[in-house]
């Protein structure tokens, strides 16, 4: 199963939730926001949303320094 994460094709062994995908990449959920298939799901839905073949995921970090 292939999904596009931050513009790059990524192969997933099995259907995975957004939360589990982030966990597998060592990303602390509180440090990012995500867009899934061009809409922005609530943070509370990340555990329910399963990434499917062809899905698009954008992960953007909180960046507030200056």
């Amino acid at each position, binding site marked *: 199963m292939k999904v596009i994460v*931050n*513009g790059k094709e990524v192969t997933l062994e099995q259907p995975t939730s957004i939360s589990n995908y982030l966990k597998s990449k060592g990303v602390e959920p*509180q*440090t990012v*926001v995500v*867009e899934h298939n*061009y*809409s*922005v799901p*609530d943070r509370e839905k990340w555990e329910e949303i399963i990434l499917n073949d062809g899905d698009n995921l*954008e992960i*953007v*970090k*909180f*960046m*507030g*320094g*200056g």
Partner: protein
Amino acid sequence: MINQMQERYARHFNLKEIGLEGQEKLRQAKVLVIGAGGLGSPVLYYLAAAGVGTIGIADHDKVSISNLNRQILHTSADIGRKKVESGAEKLLSLNPEISIIMHDMKVTPENIAALLAGYNIVVDATDNFTSRFLISDYCFRLEIPLIEAGVQGFEGIILTIIPGETPCYRCLYPNPPEDRKAFEGLGIVGATAGIFGSLQALEVIKRITGAGKTIAGILVFDGLDGSFRNVKWSQRKDCPLCGQNPTNL
């Protein structure tokens, strides 16, 4: 005087996107830069150099030695001075033809509306999420274009927010991170702030002169990869600020 002005901006006059007309628009513009630090330094230098006629600098801080790895508006001799004063001095030395308004203050919900009044464009060059959300909320309410950028380590993001035209800051970040203090005082390479401050200044100059297009979506930079990525972020229908049932107005 006219000749001197023509000399100063000679490299703008032979650009079809700026020319004499664009230079006059820059001279008439009033731009507020909030934060005279890592991002603010390049923003302020390039806006002053470009001949933006009135530049407001808002900052409540004093220069400290740990600022100097990135805040190139200030020097070792400025340690202990107010950033607005140190900054104004450098900018007027670079370009005495412009006006600098010093706002020696921390932005708060009580003073921000008065601070923003009269400015055409606001540049968010602050270093914390509390200020960023406050600035973005009020720029949206007052319909002032806002150039947002944030940096961390070797990375950064920038988005140009035009109220009513583009997604807003809360479309990207609906709320501040849970532990916003954890994001304060993180490492920053000065050059990363330099890149994003320069991009912010360029967005301001484009917006004033009408040159080109504003950055669409969010431009994300990973300096360790050496890669820029343009993310076409969507406007949130349930955005707490610009959505159908806003809760932050």
